[in-house]
């Protein structure tokens, strides 16, 4: 495909996205932490649903999932089951997040942990772990754009150019109006992405001769693509290594769980959860079908992640649709990295800076948060340049690391005996072990890090909690608040209270 088409497509996207982002700004402007990072807890409707969907499914869906299906067949759909499990778990845990968030005014999930366990150290460590493990996930989004522009231009636009373009756009959009502009541009991109996917899959499937012919041909020519372990990509150990950490993805990944603080009401939360599951179902089936189509039409690609880009740049797809899809994929990647950047910068400001500096003002925290935005973007660019693995596998590495936060997070709501020390030991020890396992080829005693992280973090959390001092009054109040409201009772939420600064209980 001609480079000028690609560049004009990007220019058109930037103009439209900037206009939407600018218009989304509230008259009051983003001058407070709550407005800039969580939209004053007023997010609802189609925008909240599409934005949540775009943050969860992102470029990973259009490029990573198609690439994973290209490499290993329908096992990719099985992996996606874990996404749905995590969203069903959010339906159970989400109201508790929302309730305590509204009551105590939390901006970040690690701030919530710090308060529940009455420990600045735990808030600091949880925020630190999120920073370490979310960098690869941000890098994955940038790499998605890199592969896209490289594949569509047949190498004329380099991977690095694509990565840098995406990083610059992400920083600009984050600055326009914080989370509000990110959510509106998210919503726009998600809508374009799903319509574009329908068009592309429609074109390619009809070229093959319909869905029946597609599955008949795959069954005849590449039968293993319709089963697991298939060609061997999805051995059972590999499969559980990628699904186990993902079961709690929407609870453990702070850029997703932070959204639970933003819902205007429990009814909006319901719409967001169900809407994003329906969005995901359509998107995932389309991505898997597309992956199977590309296996038949363009076999032998050197990198599986180039499946979507090469298809979009090929004669199979009309150039206009190819460009629209490219814009949607770039937009999805940029909006996801924006969500991550905003979440991480809010954590650095709220849980690292504010916890180490006595009496830091709200405006000082916001300034620090804004300074952190480009720093995280640069780190993600450096990581993306390493091109370590398949997009899907790098995402798994990130979620595997973040799974160390699951026991402390769920324990905050469901296990009163859980303590700060239990949380700290489980996050630090398991986090270090996950890094060690990845540094040694992702195998310890024959098992990948994904199989180790969640069980080990859970055991450490429980054992250390049982051997440490019982939590005090704050934990009791927190849990009473979290369990007071659920499933329809008092779903307008509590009145906000002024939360005193943390003081470690003696």
């Amino acid at each position: 495909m001609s480079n000028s088409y690609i560049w004009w497509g990007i220019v058109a996207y930037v103009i439209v996205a900037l206009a939407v982002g600018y218009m989304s700004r509230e008259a009051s402007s983003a001058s407070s932490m709550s407005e800039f990072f969580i939209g004053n807890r007023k997010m609802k409707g189609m925008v909240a649903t599409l934005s949540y969907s775009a943050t969860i499914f992102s470029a990973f869906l259009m490029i990573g999932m198609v690439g994973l299906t290209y490499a290993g067949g329908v096992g990719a759909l099985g992996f996606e089951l874990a996404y749905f499990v995590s969203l069903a778990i959010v339906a159970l845990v989400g109201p508790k997040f929302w309730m305590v968030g509204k009551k105590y005014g939390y901006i970040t999930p690690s701030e919530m942990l710090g308060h529940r366990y009455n420990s600045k150290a735990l808030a600091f460590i949880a925020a630190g772990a999120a920073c370490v493990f979310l960098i690869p996930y941000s890098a994955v989004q940038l790499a998605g754009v890199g592969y896209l522009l490289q594949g569509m231009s047949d190498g004329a636009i380099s991977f690095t150019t694509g990565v840098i373009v995406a990083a610059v756009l992400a920083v600009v959009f984050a600055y326009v109006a914080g989370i509000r502009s990110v959510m509106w541009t998210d919503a726009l991109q998600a809508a374009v992405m799903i319509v574009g996917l329908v068009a592309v899959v429609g074109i390619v499937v009809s070229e093959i001769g319909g869905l029946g012919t597609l599955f008949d041909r795959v069954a005849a020519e590449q039968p293993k693509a319709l089963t697991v372990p298939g060609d061997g990509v999805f051995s059972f150990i590999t499969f559980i290594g990628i699904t186990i950490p993902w079961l709690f993805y929407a609870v453990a990944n702070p850029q997703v769980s932070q959204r639970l603080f933003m819902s205007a009401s429990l009814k909006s939360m319901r719409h967001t959860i169900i809407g994003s599951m329906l969005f995901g179902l359509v998107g995932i089936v389309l991505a898997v079908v597309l992956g199977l189509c590309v296996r038949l039409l363009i076999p032998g690609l050197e990198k599986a992640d180039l499946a979507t880009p090469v298809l979009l740049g090929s004669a199979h797809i009309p150039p206009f649709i190819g460009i629209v899809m490219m814009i949607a994929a770039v937009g999805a990647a940029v909006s996801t990295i924006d969500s991550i950047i905003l979440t991480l910068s809010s954590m650095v400001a709220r849980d690292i800076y504010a916890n180490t500096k006595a009496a830091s003002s709200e405006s000082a925290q916001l300034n620090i948060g804004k300074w952190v935005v480009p720093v995280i973007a640069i780190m993600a660019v450096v990581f993306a340049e390493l091109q370590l693995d398949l997009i899907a596998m790098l995402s798994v590495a990130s979620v595997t690391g973040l799974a160390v936060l699951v026991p402390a997070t769920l324990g905050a709501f469901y296990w009163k005996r859980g303590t700060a020390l239990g949380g700290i030991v489980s996050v630090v020890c398991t986090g270090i072990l996950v890094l060690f396992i990845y540094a040694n080829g992702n195998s310890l005693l024959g098992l990948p890090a994904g199989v180790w992280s969640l069980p080990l973090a859970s055991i450490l959390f429980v054992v250390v909690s049982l051997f440490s001092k019982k939590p005090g009054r704050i934990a009791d109040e927190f849990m009473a608040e979290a369990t007071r409201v659920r499933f329809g009772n008092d779903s307008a939420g509590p009145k906000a209270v002024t939360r005193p600064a943390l003081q470690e209980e003696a």
Partner: protein
Amino acid sequence: MEGKKWFLVIGLITAIGHWLPYTMLTDVHAWYGSFLLWLLLDVALIFSAMMITRNFEDS
């Protein structure tokens, strides 16, 4: 407790989604094998989430 019941349902769906494709369906090279099973389990999870959140209200 309603929450506990739903955790069990979600756990059961997860177990089926891991067990059947690697046992009974490992030689079914067709759309009605693992592909269909995972699709149906996704739908079951969406239905579960709808049931869990059915009473969420504005006020």
